[in-house]
């Protein structure tokens, strides 16, 4: 195979890798398959022997097409660079690459294809956190190294050829450098590229670990398109849009639960993970939002590695510790229950709102976030918003949380308006709810904040909605003259969790209860390999919290539980275990590579420093103890300097013996390997041939040194000339060596016996 053919194959291989990588990163199976088909077509049409390239004019004109497509899409990019832009750029690059493949290719065209491929992988690596892509990227870099090697060889070959052509007279034919691939060339090149890849990976890893993560203003912070995020969890619920629940399997976060320091969780235990709460419904836009109390967000600085208590005097045995890793970054920090203390790995400030007990980052995070939250276990009598007293004094009166029953200020004249009042100005909802209450023999004072029957009422309404409405990810469109909540309750009776929650909230609040909408995730997928819960985009959920007198804010989920369970059901069986295993590995990949940040870097340095300090201390301790022990040993042998010297000698001997044995063992291995390489024989045969270098070693002691250039037969003859007795032995051993090494004789018992005898006689002769 010539150099040119070799290069072409490698370039195609690399291009296929970049297409697969890009397809993996963008989940664009169609585009990837199309591009791969075009690549194979280009190989058969253009680059296979006898193929013809398409004229360059046509190629250049064809490039205008994707350019036009890109330019027409440009107005969409006014919002800034986002994920869409990266995908578009990647697709554009892919198109250009395919076109270049169909063209006639000079060296500069190969350079362009290589650079375009690298740019495409850069685009893909920005938008992908997948471990598969990471592995593919490594393979791509290895292949790129090999391709660059071969390409560099071709460039130098072409340069020499051009030089020779330039000096050749016109009517003569210039001799061309031989570009055929010699034996072992590709193997040694592969070894070299592998070695270089490993070294580069090592250097790259060091650079990766120690490079400061610059917190420069990132243009790519907004890369995650809000439209895509709303397909999963969102801190706003928009009932005007068609469907906002996605079936995406993309992992969003992992959560480990601990009670009293012990991990717990199982496939049978599921729970809700609170994200944001919404108390205000805008009937014009049909959106749930946070009300004016959002101005009461308070900045807190947990500091890295330390818990910041939000409530004092908490019983530690009643705490649920949640270790949460947000894989894709978010502004909202999720908790199972309202937090009582917080810890983050980063030195960033957080926002905490004591009114709705929502925890947030100060700004949108695009990278992985890791944090720990302690929450009081539900139904604890102290689990009430009013206990966040350290924030309470700074709150405006109307934003203060509903007081607890013990608070004497909870009068009718001074009651807070948070999460109260009708959700939609539709009296039909109130009438409908009152009808239901009457049917269930329940009643309520609509002006009171609390009623002892609130729990019963909320449970009844929850059951009613579950039994009368149908869960659907594609709810029917609402009539124009009707708001979506009324439409759901009275017309379609079909919708997803946000409709159910909105309806429950509207019904409870229509009769004077205090309730709010909560957005978050329904968590049920337990990874038994990593012992954590995995939360995916499809687990996004909405439910309601109702304020009750006895238990504070209580969760009510009107969505049919069987529907929620089926939509968030994890794969079981062996495949499910494999999925969990992959997820665990990918989680490690994401948390230690993709999301490696300043905090982790600092932790790493701290650990390294601690390790060094620990090692230094241990070495000092070991040295002091050893010296003391040797002194004692010396005194025990014989008091005085002689005893000390003997003790030191003994220690050196004992300590050196394992090293010596290890050295002998390694040397044996090395010699065996050398013989195997030399003889190109099977490992079994080469082990048998080890006797020959051993014989040479013995002879060297007797003054017979075999030169490197000297064949065994010649050497045996030389020994025979100098010593007849030794020479005969060496001759017989050399014959035995030749029989196996060149004659193809399999070492049998007779052969081994003759070799052993010959070796022992040789040793005796030398000793004599």
């Amino acid at each position: 195979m010539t150099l040119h053919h070799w290069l072409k194959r490698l370039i195609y291989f690399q291009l296929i890798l970049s297409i697969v990588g890009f397809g993996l990163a963008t989940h664009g199976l169609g585009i990837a398959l199309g591009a791969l088909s075009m690549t194979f077509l280009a190989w058969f049409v253009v680059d296979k022997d006898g193929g013809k390239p398409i004229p360059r004019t046509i190629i250049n004109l064809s490039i205008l097409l994707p350019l036009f497509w890109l330019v027409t899409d440009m107005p969409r990019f006014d919002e800034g660079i986002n994920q869409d832009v990266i995908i578009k750029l990647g697709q554009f690059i892919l198109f250009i690459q395919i076109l270049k493949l169909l063209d006639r290719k000079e060296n500069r065209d190969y350079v362009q294809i290589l650079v375009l491929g690298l740019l495409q992988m850069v685009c893909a690596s920005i938008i992908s956190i997948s471990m598969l892509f990471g592995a593919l990227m490594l393979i791509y870099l290895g292949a790129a190294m090999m391709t660059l090697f071969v390409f560099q060889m071709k460039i130098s070959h072409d340069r020499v050829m051009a030089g020779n052509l330039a000096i050749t007279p016109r009517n003569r034919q210039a001799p061309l450098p031989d570009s055929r691939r010699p034996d072992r060339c590709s193997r040694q090149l592969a070894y070299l590229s592998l070695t270089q890849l490993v070294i580069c990976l090592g250097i790259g890893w060091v650079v990766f670990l120690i490079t400061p993560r610059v917190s420069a203003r990132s243009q790519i912070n907004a890369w995650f398109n809000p439209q895509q995020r709303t397909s999963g969890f969102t801190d706003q619920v928009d009932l005007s849009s068609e469907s906002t629940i996605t079936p995406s399997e993309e992992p969003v976060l992992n959560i480990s639960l601990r009670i009293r320091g012990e991990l717990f969780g199982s496939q049978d235990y599921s729970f809700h993970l609170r994200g944001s709460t919404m108390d205000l419904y805008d009937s014009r836009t049909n959106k749930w939002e946070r009300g004016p109390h959002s101005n009461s967000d308070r900045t807190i600085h947990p500091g890295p590695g330390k818990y910041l208590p939000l409530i004092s005097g908490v019983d530690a045995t009643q705490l649920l510790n949640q270790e949460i890793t947000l894989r894709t970054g978010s502004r909202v920090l999720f908790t199972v229950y309202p937090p009582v203390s917080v810890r983050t790995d980063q030195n960033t400030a957080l926002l905490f709102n004591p009114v709705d007990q929502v925890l947030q980052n100060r700004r949108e995070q695009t990278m992985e976030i890791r944090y720990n939250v302690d929450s009081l276990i539900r139904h604890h009598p102290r689990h009430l918003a009013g206990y966040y007293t350290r924030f309470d004094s700074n709150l405006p009166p109307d934003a203060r949380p509903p007081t607890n029953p013990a608070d004497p200020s909870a009068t009718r004249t001074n009651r807070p308006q948070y999460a109260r009042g009708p959700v939609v100005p539709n009296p039909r909802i109130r009438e409908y709810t009152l009808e239901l209450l009457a049917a269930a023999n329940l009643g309520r004072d609509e002006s009171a904040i609390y009623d002892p029957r609130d729990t019963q009422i909320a449970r009844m309404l929850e059951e009613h909605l579950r039994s009368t409405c149908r869960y659907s990810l594609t709810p029917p469109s609402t009539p124009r003259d009707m708001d979506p909540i009324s439409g759901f309750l009275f017309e379609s009776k079909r919708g997803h969790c946000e409709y159910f929650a909105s309806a429950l909230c509207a019904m409870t609040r229509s009769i004077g209860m205090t309730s709010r909408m909560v957005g978050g995730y329904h968590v049920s997928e337990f990874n038994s390999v990593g012992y954590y819960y995995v939360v995916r985009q499809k687990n996004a959920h909405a439910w309601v919290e109702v304020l009750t007198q006895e238990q504070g804010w209580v969760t009510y989920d009107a969505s049919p539980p069987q529907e929620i369970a089926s939509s968030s059901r994890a794969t079981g069986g062996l495949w499910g275990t494999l999925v969990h295993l992959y997820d665990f590995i990918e989680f490690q990949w994401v948390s230690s590579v993709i999301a490696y940040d300043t905090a982790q870097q600092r932790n790493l340095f701290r650990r390294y420093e601690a390790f060094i300090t620990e090692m230094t201390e241990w070495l000092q301790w070991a040295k002091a103890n050893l010296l003391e022990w040797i002194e004692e040993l010396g005194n025990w042998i014989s008091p005085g300097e002689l005893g000390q010297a003997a003790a030191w000698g003994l220690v050196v001997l004992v300590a050196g013996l394992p090293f010596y044995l290890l050295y002998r063992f390694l040397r044996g291995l090395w010699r065996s390997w050398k013989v195997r390489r030399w003889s190109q024989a099977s490992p079994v045969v080469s082990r048998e041939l080890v006797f020959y270098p051993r014989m040479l070693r013995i002879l060297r002691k007797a003054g017979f040194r075999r030169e490197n250039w000297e064949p065994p037969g010649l050497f045996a003859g030389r020994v025979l000339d100098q010593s007849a007795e030794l020479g005969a032995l060496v001759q017989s051993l050399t014959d035995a060596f030749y029989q196996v090494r060149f004659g193809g004789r399999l070492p049998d018992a007779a052969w081994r016996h003759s070799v052993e005898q010959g070796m022992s006689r040789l040793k005796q002769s030398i000793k004599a």
Partner: protein
Amino acid sequence: MRRSIQFKLGGLIYIAMMLFIGAAAMNSRTNLLYLTFGMMAGGLILSSLIARWMLSRVALHRIVADSTSPGHILPIEYRLTNPKRMMPCFALVIEELDAGRDGAVSGNPSAWVMHIGPGRNVRTDACAWPLKRGVIQFNRIRLSTTFPFGLFKISTILRIPRQTVIHPVIHPVRPRALVELSRHAPSTPRWKQVPGDGEEFFAMREYREGDPLKSIEWKRSAHAGKTLVRQNSRPAPRRLMLCLDLDIPAGQGPEMAERAITLGASLLKAAFGKGYEVGVWLGRAGDGEELKTSRDIQTCLDHLGRLKLKEGAEAKHQTPHANPTAGLELVVVHTSERRMDGSDYGQYHCSASDDDRLLMLPGSQQPAGPSTEAAP
């Protein structure tokens, strides 16, 4: 041996790409790009180290012919040895740095080796194209590589001096010219002063077993008291001395002198082909050097190849005298007509402009008559 490192355009592109990826990593805070950036930085460091390691201890041996002639390819063979135990060599470029300096060849030849395994030898070829008579001075060889990434060009300059003489162009000689030459040749045979089978007395020596009885000189043997035999001398071949009168008048180029050399060399070669013992005499034109007769045509042609012309040099015409009894014939080739002032016995004078008449130059008409092989 001197080793140098040179930054290449490919290196700039590589560094630009590396910085681009670094900037993208910082802007997007994408850790995979940090890793890629680090790997590229590692590649940059390794690139120079590998190239240096690759070139270290590589031995190079050049094999080239001693002589050639213009218009013929001059193959140059390089033998490279990589004595390293682990590291192979890839994409080595071998460039002659001094060969084309004098203009004797069309440029500096270069060769390429794709791969030398550890402890292996390889051979590769390059070609030079001699343009004119002269000497190719091979001296410095640059052994370089841009492997692995083309970021740097690491090169080593080796000094391996060697000369190749480019002989004058030899054209076939017309039969008429050889007839003219033989017309001036001395008719009497010349005997060489070595024992042989001729008729002239050489010496007496003591009888050895195997000597024919008829060679015994009985009288002298009786006089000397031991058996003596007569030894005769061997007949010597004809000798032809080429005398070049290469004085170039001021204001004229060396073209006529080159033609004269070509003519002389062609005559010399033709005479050698006919069994002459040949030699050249260059007088003052060749830096005053005077050359003796040589039976080796290669040596004579080497001398003609090495001959340096002095343009506009004032030179007196000196011609060695022919010695007919010694069997010496002189062929005097002049650069211009005015030098042809007579011819003695055993001397044949011609000028450079006679080449068309005496030689079968490319493009000239092939004369009818006997071929060169049929002459004297």
